[in-house]
């Protein structure tokens, strides 16, 4: 039996060092040297301050901004750490709603979101929670239905805002891979630049 101990312990130790330390540290070293922007989370700067990450969605509630998708992320309740409170786009704790398809709570939430948007059949992504709770994108349709509200709140011509949205639509890679989408943070940054 003891003849199994030595190889088991030695190889476990060796592979811990090789695959658990040398491998991630080597990748970290190369990544930090060659690709520092991506390796450090693709931060977005505005006037020298970090205002977010290019790949991570953030919460937009103001009338003057395009809104992202509903987010199911939560955070610890400041009053009682044992409980959680809603905290959309909490990038320290990703989660989806995980509500099942027959959930009455899900139907209720969707119904309320649709009503808030003025009823009718709304773009699916605008009234459903994303998987990560941090989805940085909305569909082009979901951006288009918000144009009227944003243009009115900013006192801009709708056509002007529409052109801006269309310029921000990212097509599928090579025309086929992935889905057409709009990065909400990039769109809102462009909107702020337009206003200046």
């Amino acid at each position, binding site marked *: 039996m003891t003849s199994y101990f030595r190889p*088991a312990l030695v190889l476990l130790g*060796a592979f811990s060092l090789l*695959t658990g330390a040398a491998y991630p540290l080597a990748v970290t070293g190369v990544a930090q040297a060659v690709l520092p922007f991506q390796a450090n989370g693709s931060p977005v700067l505005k006037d020298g301050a970090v205002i977010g990450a290019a790949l991570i969605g*953030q919460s937009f509630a103001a009338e003057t901004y395009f809104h992202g998708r509903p987010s199911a992320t939560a955070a610890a309740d400041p009053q009682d750490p044992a409980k959680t409170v809603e905290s959309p786009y909490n990038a*320290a704790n990703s989660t989806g709603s995980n509500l099942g398809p027959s959930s009455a709570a899900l139907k209720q939430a969707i119904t309320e979101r649709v009503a808030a948007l003025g009823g009718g059949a709304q773009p699916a992504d605008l009234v459903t929670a994303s998987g990560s709770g941090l989805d940085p994108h909305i569909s082009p*349709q979901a951006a288009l239905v918000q144009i009227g509200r944003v243009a009115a709140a900013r006192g801009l011509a709708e056509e002007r805002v529409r052109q801006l949205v269309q310029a921000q639509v990212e097509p599928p890679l090579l025309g086929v891979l*992935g889905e057409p989408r709009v990065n909400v943070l990039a769109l809102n940054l462009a909107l702020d630049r337009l206003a200046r």
Partner: protein
Amino acid sequence: MTLDLIQFLIFATLLLALAWPLGHYMARVFTGEAQFLAPVENALLRLAGEGRPQPQRWQAYALSLLAFNAAGFALLFLMLRFQNVLPLNPQGFDALSAHLAFNAAISFVTNTNWQSYGGETTLSNLSQMLGLTTQNFVSAASGAAVAAAVARGFAAKQTRVLGNFWVDLTRTTLYILLPASLVLALVLVALGLPQTLAGSFDATTLEGAQQSIALGPVASQVAIKQLGTNGGGFFNVNSAHPFENPNALSNLLTTISILLIPVAFCFTYGRLVGDRRQGGALFAAMAVLFLVGFGAIYGAERLGNPLHAGLIDPTAGNMEGKEVRFGIFASTLWAAATTAASNGSVNAMLDSFTPLGGLVAMLNIQLGEVVFGGVGVGLTGMLLFVILTVFLAGLMVGRTPEYLGKKIEAKEIKLAALTLLVMPLGILVLASLAIATGNAQSSVQDAGPHGLSELLYAYTSATGNNGSAFAGFTANTPWHNACLGIAMLLGRFGYIIPILAIAGSLSAKRPAAETAGTFPTHGPLFVTLLLATILIVGALTFLPVLALGPIAEHVSILAGQSF
């Protein structure tokens, strides 16, 4: 639709173009022909006292594997229990509770990567790297070693030996997993995945709120969790998180990585047993099941949720829990791949899939993780069904069943039949126990039949060593951490030990020459029989409980009923 078909063809073409040469290369790794890393390999083996490795019989091979996995469990358990006093813990996370550490250690040692916790809120960088990443490599290498040993045993001419576990473990890690992960990790960083030792950074959003953005050594862990059919993500939501999977290209590459080594193993097997048609037959059976499963999930999600008709524009399908950049196609292809291949990573929340989409994901696992399956163990799981199929075919024509010229006798059939009990034990018995004790009711999130689906999925995922979840289920309780841990052990070693025993038994037999009366184990007839065996066993075992869960939910939704 057309675009989705083109996307699928790109995916399938790239997958096969990579898996075919990889399969042949892997065969060279297991025969010992590949030698370019010999200095490192020999140094490691000498240090381990295996400088002159002897071929092992099946018992010694299995004991070596068990000793290595037991040591891995002990080390990981201690590391998680004491992460609060260990270095590289920038966010100052606490130690894991005993039951959570038990569950997590078993989970990563058995190549399951079920996560009862959220990565970014629970684990230090040291735990993620030295603890989990190590097991991601060596648990996959252990599975690959089993497949190599079984192939050798099936092909052996009365040698009684299966190879040396320590050599197979070392060579798989050095020659296959490490180089592939290094390349993939760096490509993924270029595509946007973070790779840093920092724990988070702070941003002030456009609306003036504070946003703390978690990150870490993400790319290195994502590369091996995809390639090693591990599936345990850096973040709670796994590859749905934009930092694990930011765009269509990262998604394509990581989806291919889920299936790459399991597909390649079909071709490796054909080479190792000296008859490529045998590997081709296994590949064909797996591919048929995969295509049917994917088509069903895709259709179900594309059609969307009838309960939300009139509220949601129907063209987009069921988007709850899915990411815009992936949409229906890439989310469902991933779901089919990850449940077929025993990976368990997700890029969309399976709990929010339609009832039929969720059913197929669950069934993919319940069939025994043989649709490509985990690294190595998917292939050996399929070989168990091959043995049962030649036995059934032998009964039909009244001949002694043979596989690769070896007589399949009572001992092999008994062992193979024993493994048929693993899935029902781990899933049906343990889930029933949870219901009878009230532990199921307190952990499910959803009411109605979907609650049963959540419970069922948890035990299915654990027993199948998959690791994906209907994540509304609260698994981090002493009861479920313990029982899911037992299910994972059962699902791992309940297959590995019998298949090694069968390989040991077959390695002692003399292969008979092929005659006109030999039933060929390749070609469409055999593949059809194999598929029928898998589906009949799976359906007989699980249809009743699936009727109470996802099927009941489906008909409720059609009747307009929510819970």
